[in-house]
């Protein structure tokens, strides 16, 4: 479908926003609680794994450029449809949970930090409405929006980081590896739910336009996003030390810190709002992917918005209404870590093989 086509550059920028989008909310304090000032090392390890998987996924895209098979075609023709459906079900759970966790962080940000009290339904519904409006307009519109707002979002992050950066004593991160390398590597796996942002690419596989470069823009975005995330995390733990695990929303605290002069007003809230656009885009992308999962599971092709599927995905956003998100997250880590790892880390490594097989089978069928 044409409205879901994206160029390699757009894909790269979106990936950057997705990397940076959700990791400055609750993750830094969770990691600080896990491994103290070594949390930036956890990020480094996680990004290392992400980088390897991303390389394989991009290889699969290269193979698929002319064939333009979608993820359902690839999985159905390589690992059979039942396995494909099972994988889509896992994907669906991941995307919905990620959207829920991000939404709940946004809820905290708006209702606690910005002091606007509201209820979950009224908060989540506009997000869902915006997401389905965006899905209706096409993934291309989301990609273009990311492209348009990228500069502004990057500027807001820089504005928030400049003051803390100049005041951070990075020697606070010494000694390196105090938490123990085994613990650090283990934490990077147990917290893997927060990583592998590339998984959205599975659902736009058939729509990626590759003119000249693919690896260069995507890996540039990956390294930039990873570097920014590691830097921000390092600044957070260096600035707040032992207090870091107590601060739920890292960006909010860094924002307050940026407002050095007490008479200037909380201008950081304006920049935070701009930065939050990247989180909203991330939520939209995850809702798009969850919606696509339903499409793939039922083997349908929704030309316009399918209101039943939309209503179902919207209903899943009400989960935090009944379950505490922290509890939900812990349960996910306990039970879902291995199944999630299959689609997050094993599937990308196998994607080039699956894509080749699927293309061969499809071509053989036409011949």
């Amino acid at each position, binding site marked *: 479908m044409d409205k879901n086509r994206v160029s390699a550059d757009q894909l790269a920028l979106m990936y950057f926003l997705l990397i940076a989008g959700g990791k400055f909310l609750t993750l830094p304090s969770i990691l600080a609680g896990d491994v103290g000032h070594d949390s930036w090392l956890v990020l480094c390890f996680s990004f290392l794994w992400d980088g390897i998987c991303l390389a394989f996924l991009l290889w699969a895209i290269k193979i698929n450029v002319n064939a333009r098979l979608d993820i359902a075609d690839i999985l159905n023709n390589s690992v059979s449809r039942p396995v494909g459906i099972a994988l889509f079900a896992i994907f669906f759970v991941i995307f919905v949970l990620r959207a829920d966790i991000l939404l709940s962080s946004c809820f905290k940000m708006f209702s606690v930090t910005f002091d606007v009290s509201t209820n979950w339904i*009224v908060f989540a519904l506009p997000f869902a409405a915006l997401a389905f409006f965006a899905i209706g307009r096409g993934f291309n519109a989301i990609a273009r929006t990311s492209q348009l707002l990228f500069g502004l979002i990057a500027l807001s992050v820089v504005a928030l980081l400049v003051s803390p950066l100049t005041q951070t004593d990075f020697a606070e991160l010494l*000694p390196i590896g105090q938490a123990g390398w085994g613990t650090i590597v283990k934490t990077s796996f147990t917290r893997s739910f927060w990583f592998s942002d590339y998984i959205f690419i599975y659902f736009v596989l058939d729509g990626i336009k590759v003119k000249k470069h693919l690896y260069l823009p995507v890996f540039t975005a990956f390294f930039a996003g990873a570097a920014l995330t590691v830097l921000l995390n390092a600044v957070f733990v260096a600035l707040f030390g032992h*207090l870091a695990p*107590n601060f739920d*929303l890292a960006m909010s605290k860094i924002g307050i810190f940026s407002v050095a002069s007490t*008479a200037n007003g909380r201008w950081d809230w304006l920049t935070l709002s701009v930065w939050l656009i990247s989180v909203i885009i991330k939520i939209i992308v995850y809702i798009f992917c969850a919606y696509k999962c339903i499409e793939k599971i039922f083997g349908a092709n929704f030309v316009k918005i399918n209101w039943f599927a939309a209503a179902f995905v919207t209903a899943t956003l009400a989960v935090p209404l009944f379950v505490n998100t922290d509890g939900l997250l812990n349960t996910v880590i306990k039970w879902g870590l291995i199944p999630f790892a299959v689609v997050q880390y094993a599937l990308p490594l196998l994607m080039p093989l699956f894509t080749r097989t699927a293309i061969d089978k499809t071509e053989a069928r036409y011949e």
Partner: protein
Amino acid sequence: MSSIKRIAVLLAAFVAIGFVSQSFKGSNVLDRAIILGMGIDFDDDQLVLTAEIVSPGNGEEQVGTFSKTVTVRGEAIGQCIQYVAEQTGKEASLGQCVVVVLGQNYFEQRDFSDTVNYLINSDSFKESAIICCCSGSAEYIFNNGNALSQSVSMSIAAMLLDQAENVAVASNNLLDYTRSQHELDRTGYLNLITFVPSANSDAQQPDKVQGYFTYSKAAIFRQSKFVCYLDETDVMGKAVFDKDVSGDSFVVYDDGMAYTLKATHKKTDLQVSDSAVNADITLYVSLARTDSAETNGFFNPQNKKLISDAMLEQVRQRAQKLAQSFWDKQVRYNFDLLDVHKALKRKQGESQALSLKPMSDFTFTLTVSVKEG
């Protein structure tokens, strides 16, 4: 059908607007008691919170007094803030609070970690807000005007934030102080504010006490419990070590004339090992002039040497004495404002043994040199 659809969309929009307007509850700025500063005392087993609150003038009147104070009593800071809301009829807002002053009977007698933790964990309270303590009661400080400013809070914050560097006093914000109470040896300091009454020159309010604040002393705390005071000499001694603080002044004599020299900048090198601390400090001094802008060396058109070696030596001896005296005080009361424990932590990692290591375990070697500059 199309018109029915339109009516339905319009109705839905109106219902949504009504629903959303009822569901999003914010506080209009006019319904908020905006707290500029808080003074906290302890009296009769209760906290006494004195809050300086923005008080708008009438209509277009935008000059004149724009703050009022409200004093409430409660068992904890959170409760006191609730009472402020009750007294003013407006929801209390901490987002614009610039200073927290702890009264003498509070910080000397009580553990105030609950108060500090409440503030640092708040999402709206700025961690860059100044926290300090005062001689006497904080209520007295907030209820007596300052000749230089309309608002006591703004005045104290400006004093400690902007002037500290030029007058050799380090200041502490909420974040730095809280961290100092949670990490390693868990000791830190707060500036001590003293209100000095002076003659009242305000014809509008002849009954009100006027005066000014001094902040040349400090108090030391361990886990938010009072340890000891630092007098002017100790504070100056600390300033000698502090590379971010310039403005130390020294009176020296040459050819029977008195000269005032000020440190414009300094280099400090603190080498810490398991059992020894070696401090190597180089002070760069210049003649103090009447214009305070010179103290940081902004204006110095003359290139010829103005300060004799004898004058430099006098400064060196004085600085050495101040620094040594400060170190001795640290050893005596076992507190660490020079980040000796932190330096060791960076080498060895954090441990219980390091946190408990007393200052007396370190042998201290100090080298001070003074140069014109």
